[in-house]
């Protein structure tokens, strides 16, 4: 019912890089965690939290926390988040001590069931109280899973947003259109799971490989925190001399970005590049320039890292978060490193085995604001002038995020 080696966990924190703990919550979380357990994440500590003894035993994470009381008899919560929440509250101190020593806690869960929906918000709160930054990666159920699960998921999501520093959420339904009809159920879940894993990997690169152009985790959380309702992410890679252009094209062509429209409407965009030592500044610049232009008013955070193994490959993770109508004409903040210029100019961004992007989208609550309609007033009734995903009828200064005051 609780783990023997919490202290061990706490000690893995090293002084230089932030200590990262990745928690998988519930059955879905445990599965995702297994998928994550590769050498790449060796520096992170894994832990799984569940109510189901059998599922917990099958999980490969070194630290297992079982929340249980006699009522459950190790059979799981039966999909009841309230019961799980009560359990988690009861064992709050256990959870908190499990988070001790971590600078960053990544929380992975599938919302909709009992454990994921019930425990995640409590765990997030525990981790914050233990002094860690908390970023949650969650998936929302397919529509066919029924409205009860959907409601539970939405409730849990709201609670999680309150408790965690940032939430990246992927509605499985959004993935639906990307899989072909003959995909088996098992493969479908693996596919959606992979999407989350890739997102985590992108964030992981940001934190774990303090590379040329650093992104602070807190920046990331600030971006994601402001009550966004949808996020989309893409993970793409290309190699060869034209890789920077190819990468941008792949991002814009990705179905989850809807030809770049999602980028245009998002409020915050995170871009993480990874490549080998042959990454040139010009390439970074080219990718960022295109994305910047595409993003309109979004706040942009970018990071780049170098991995010698990624020779000749460039991989880019883009996470775009969309607020629910916060029409801030945000300043574009691009942390292109002035410090990194000289040394960085010779490096390349490596790509991971990719060519995929994913989008995580939460239910959009509200449509376009009237403000946006005014921007193209003279043209709002005519056919939009679209050029590579940009609506040229919208004033240039708005798309480029210029603040007039």
């Amino acid at each position, binding site marked *: 019912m609780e783990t023997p080696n919490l202290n061990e966990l706490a000690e893995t924190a090293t002084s230089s890089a932030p200590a990262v703990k990745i928690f998988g919550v519930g059955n879905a979380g445990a599965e995702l965690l297994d998928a994550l357990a590769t050498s790449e994440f060796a520096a992170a500590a894994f832990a799984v939290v569940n109510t189901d003894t059998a599922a917990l035993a099958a999980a490969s994470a070194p630290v297992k926390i079982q929340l249980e009381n006699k009522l459950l008899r190790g059979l799981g919560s039966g999909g009841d988040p309230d019961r799980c929440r009560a359990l988690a509250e009861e064992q709050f101190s256990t959870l908190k001590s499990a988070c001790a020593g971590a600078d960053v806690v990544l929380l992975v869960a599938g919302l909709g069931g009992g454990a994921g929906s019930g425990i995640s918000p409590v765990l997030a709160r525990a981790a914050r109280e233990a002094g860690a930054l908390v970023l949650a990666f969650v998936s929302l159920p397919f529509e066919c899973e029924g409205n009860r699960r959907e409601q539970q998921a939405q409730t849990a999501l709201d609670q999680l947003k309150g408790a965690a520093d940032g939430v990246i959420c992927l509605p499985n339904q959004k993935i639906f259109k990307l899989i072909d009809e003959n995909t088996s159920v098992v493969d479908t879940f693996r596919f959606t799971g992979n999407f989350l894993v890739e997102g985590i990997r992108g964030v992981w690169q940001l934190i774990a490989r303090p590379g040329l152009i650093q992104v602070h985790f807190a920046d990331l959380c600030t971006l994601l925190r402001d009550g966004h309702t949808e996020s989309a992410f893409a993970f793409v890679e290309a190699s060869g001399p034209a890789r920077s252009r190819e990468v941008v094209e792949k991002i814009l062509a990705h179905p989850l970005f809807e030809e770049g429209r999602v980028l245009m409407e998002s409020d915050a965009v995170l871009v993480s590049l990874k490549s080998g030592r042959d990454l040139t500044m010009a390439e970074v610049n080219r990718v960022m320039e295109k994305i910047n232009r595409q993003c309109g008013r979004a706040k942009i955070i970018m990071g780049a890292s170098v991995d010698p193994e990624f020779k000749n490959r460039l991989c880019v993770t883009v996470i775009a978060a969309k607020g629910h109508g916060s029409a801030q004409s945000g300043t574009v903040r691009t942390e292109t490193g002035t410090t990194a210029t000289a040394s960085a100019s010779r490096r390349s961004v490596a790509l991971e085995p990719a060519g995929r992007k994913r989008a995580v989208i939460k239910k959009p609550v509200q449509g376009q604001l009237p403000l946006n309609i005014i921007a193209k007033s003279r043209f709002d009734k005519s056919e939009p*002038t679209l050029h590579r995903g940009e609506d040229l*009828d919208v*004033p*240039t200064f708005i798309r480029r995020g210029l603040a*007039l005051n």
Partner: protein
Amino acid sequence: MFDDSKVIAGLEIGTSKICVVVGQQGPDGAPNIIGIGQFRSRGVRKGEIVNPEQVEEDLRSALFEAEQMADVEIRSVYLGVTGGHVRGFNNRGLHTVVSADREITEDDIQDVIKNAKAINLPADNSVIHAVRQHFFVDGQDGVTNPAGMLGQRLEVEMHVIHGQVNRLQNAIRLVRGTQIEVDEIVFNGVASSLAVLTGDQKEMGALVIDIGGGTTEFVVYSDGAIRHTGVLAVGGDHVSNDLAYGLKVPLSRAEKLKLEHGAASVDPAAKNRTITITNELGLALNSVNAEHLQRIMSLRLEEIFQLIAGELEQAGLVNYLRAGVFLCGGTSRVPGIVALAENVFQMNVVPGKASAIGGLTSALDQPEFATAIGLVKYGSLKQRQRVKRPPIVSADFFKGMFNRFTQRP
């Protein structure tokens, strides 16, 4: 007074104005401009007709003015067309010469051109222009006139400009509704480039950008032939709209501010300067920041140039523009736009003048008349071609720039 058969009229139904230019074929064959009529246009957005009734009314006014000034009756016009649906691309046609002596005849040339035009267009599109660039005879490049040469394999490079049939027909029907025949439709960008460029400049390679009210057309010439054409459905209207939105003033006021205080780059002197807007009685209503005004304009104009530069770069044409960039259209009057364009294209930029034609000099200097003047030029070249070009190809045929590259479907 004049022989009406020699009167050539060009009609441009633009987004901000409808313009009719009347020319007369001179004794030497070169056209002279003898009349201009224009009227503000209300039923057009982004170069395409959205309110035919209003357009017809405005068109009649413009025609009337032109007829008055030129003292002729306009019976037919060369009609300029544009819009975001117009596209251009290059295509190659192939024909095998079958005659026993392997001499290439005029028929072979017509066949190869026909083959080059047989392309897969979207179902609702039709060809506006198919312009031949140059021929290949058995792989030999750069042949401009293969007639009489020996060869087996004749190929031709064509530039094909096409658009959506229905939208093109809308304009044609509207003009015919006023009892005026349409001789031909001409892509506005092609017309402007005819007015602005001389033969030498076409030979050297040039880019003509016509920034109008609702659209921006651009045409690239190299080696005397059209290499690339394009339309952006963005123009002066967008500038005004940006200003109206950014400065929070009505559109009509924005239009006025653009004309009176606009600039294509931010003038350091404009920093913190405010422009007071007064009503017709001279009372101050509110004020706007001059720096913001100029910044909004410069961003929009710069973007237009960047989009064009990007497209040319993709087509690999940037290094062929030895004569530079020529600007025309009403928006090219914005102060400082030449410097802005030079900055983006990194080459010589010239405000285009309709130098390739004679007549009313005051009209020739106006960049916004370039399209309509070019239409007259197109017409005069066509008519000369008709007179001078029976089936046998004469030497004159190749002297006229136009004949060399223009072919109508």
